[in-house]
């Protein structure tokens, strides 16, 4: 047995390229469907876990998928804005706890999520380093944002300009990093959190500037009367919120008219959830209410349709690989006919020659399966990170 294996091994190492091609083909044929299955499974688990822990999402009428993905993962195209009065309406209804979300801007590529403190309790997010949000201009980083940018409490982070070619656009805001969230293995690890009022300042709805009533610089004043001072565009606005200029920050809109991208509603009980759903289930409603679980299930249905096509493709690939292997083995046998005759003349039995050929095939299959198994294990380990990266 040992001699058979030794001879086979010598043969395989002598024909390295042929052996490598065979091993690669079989490894990929086994690994690919397994990897896809693992990734899709993880994708489904992550989507469903986040969706299951987010009871209701309310946002502008339009794409359901964009609204849910943006509210859960902060990554889809921002939906149309709705007004803050949706939050007041939900709160006043007494059916649910409303958590507003404003996800329209980014900071060094990461989404800036404007929300209220309820969000952190709702997602059970803990501040790992530093302190929670306290004043306007503060921001808290998700664990991966802090790691990738290499910044932490006490550092500063600029919001990205909405459009680099729009020189009249919003000023980027220099935000003070007050804390870093403990890793939650969710989309929250890839986000920058600010108070919703800070998000409105980034959007330009709120701003701070020098007191025009006391200003002696007439170059920034367009019109002055007893009870009104109108500034021109030369009036510089603060791009950083400090202790000294905090008091000058104000909003040019009624609180109920301020924009948000979505509201997460956490019903007090199942009945309240259904009653709230009923309020939005009319043509007169300005917004749509979605159950993320249903939307994600619908989305997963599409993913599974694609997966079925992929699975069929994999079967075809497996068949062609098997045929390819048969061809390689037959050709190999033909090429090795003289070698077999020589071995026969040297005294090898036909059985020994058969064992040599079979051992080669078994070793190739075993090595391929082992490599495919190891790759699958690695995929299993890295799938959550990979999928989270895709979703964020």
């Amino acid at each position, binding site marked *: 047995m040992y001699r058979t294996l030794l001879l086979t091994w010598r043969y395989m190492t002598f024909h390295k390229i042929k052996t490598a091609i065979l091993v690669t083909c079989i490894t990929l044929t086994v690994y690919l469907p397994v990897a896809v299955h693992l990734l899709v499974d993880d994708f489904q688990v992550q989507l469903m876990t986040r969706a299951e822990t987010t009871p209701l999402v309310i946002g502008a009428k339009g794409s359901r998928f964009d609204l849910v993905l943006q509210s859960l993962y902060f990554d889809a195209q921002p939906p149309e804005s709705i007004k803050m009065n949706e939050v007041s309406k939900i*709160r006043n209804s007494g059916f649910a*706890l409303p958590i507003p979300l404003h996800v329209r801007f980014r900071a060094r590529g990461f989404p800036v999520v404007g929300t*209220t*403190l*309820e969000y952190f*309790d709702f997602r059970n997010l803990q501040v790992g380093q530093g*302190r*929670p*949000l*306290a*004043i*306007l201009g*503060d921001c808290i980083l998700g664990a991966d944002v802090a790691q990738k940018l290499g910044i932490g409490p006490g550092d500063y982070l600029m919001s990205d300009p909405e459009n680099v070619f729009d020189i009249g656009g919003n000023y980027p805001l220099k935000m003070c990093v007050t804390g870093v969230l403990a890793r939650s293995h969710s989309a929250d690890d890839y986000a920058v959190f600010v*108070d919703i*009022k800070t998000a409105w300042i980034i959007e330009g709805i709120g701003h701070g500037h020098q*007191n025009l*009533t*006391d200003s002696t610089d007439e170059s920034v004043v367009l019109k002055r009367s*007893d*009870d009104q001072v109108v500034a021109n565009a030369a009036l510089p606005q603060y791009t950083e919120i400090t*202790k000294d200029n*905090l*008091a000058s*920050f104000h909003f040019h809109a009624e609180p109920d008219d301020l924009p948000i991208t979505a509201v997460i509603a956490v019903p007090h009980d199942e009945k309240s959830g259904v009653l709230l759903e009923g309020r939005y289930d009319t043509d007169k409603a300005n917004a749509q209410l979605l159950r993320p679980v249903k939307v994600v299930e619908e989305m997963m249905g599409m993913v599974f349709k694609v997966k079925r096509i992929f699975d069929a493709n994999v079967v075809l690939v497996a068949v062609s690989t098997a045929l390819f292997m048969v061809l390689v083995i037959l050709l190999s046998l033909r090429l090795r006919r003289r070698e077999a005759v020589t071995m026969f003349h040297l005294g090898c039995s036909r059985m020994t020659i058969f064992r040599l050929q079979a051992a080669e095939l078994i070793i190739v299959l075993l090595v391929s399966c082992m490599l495919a198994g190891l790759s699958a294990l690695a995929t299993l380990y890295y799938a959550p990170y990979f999928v989270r990266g895709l979703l964020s």
Partner: protein
Amino acid sequence: MRKQRLTIVAAVLLGCVLWLSCGKQEKSQPDSQASDEGKKTVYVVNYPLQYFAERIGGDEVAVHFPAPSDEDPAFWMPAPETIAQYQEADLVLLNGATYAKWTEKVSLTESRIVNTSAAFSDRYLQIAKAVTHSHGPGGEHSHAGTDFNTWLDPQLAILQAQTVKDALVDLLPEHEALFNTNMTQLEIDLLALDSAFQALVTGREETPLVASHPVYGYFAHKYGLNLQARLWEPEKMPSDEEWQDFDHSIEHHPAKWMIWEGTPDSAIAVKLKEHGLDGVVFLPCGNIPEEGDYIQVMQQNVGRLKPAFE
């Protein structure tokens, strides 16, 4: 030698301890955390709300008002540590009407905030033409915009107390009966105060009066007073220009009394007397009074105002 060294080290340590203990501290109400353990915490933004919450909540809640006693709570800006205390509170009572603007510039847990004047937001008064000024550690500020001293109208104070009671019932429904009883008692006291103010001014509403600060809007509006407000501080002598402007205004508004938030400096009082006016102190009670409680201070205000209406 060794003894000497030990003495020096001990002296340095003692010095450090003394220095730390003498450092800037927010002079607020005494720490009662030990007795508050296990109770729901209520944080408020001014003294009237603290008084209402304590009267209604009794021993069932721990009410905290951390603003320093030497600052105007309306313009105070709490430190991040104090903001964290507000964030962790079970209930945060706001006065509303733009009082304590700092609440708009910090992150608080929205679902635990109750605006006690929201029920009568359509009755907010506006202060016109107020300029920026400065007094106390709070720095520069302006009284322009919405008048926020709502509690100076006892009827509005009752509405605010009612909202406080409702919020406490939501927080501790098992104590609803107690809160209702306490609210009834508080309402009786506030109605008595209203009657006292009403009796004081009835028939003398047209008496011209001047207020040193535009903080008595709701009081004047409630009782139909003929009151004009300046922007003077009790401890800061008005400029010659301000005195000239004052003289000009009292030609058309012949007031004999000026209502002050605090006792004016003697020099100001003398000069005011030279202009034919006496001063009377009406404490708005936005912060914790040095003596007595909200009702007692308001009753003292009634007593002090009497000469102005005689």
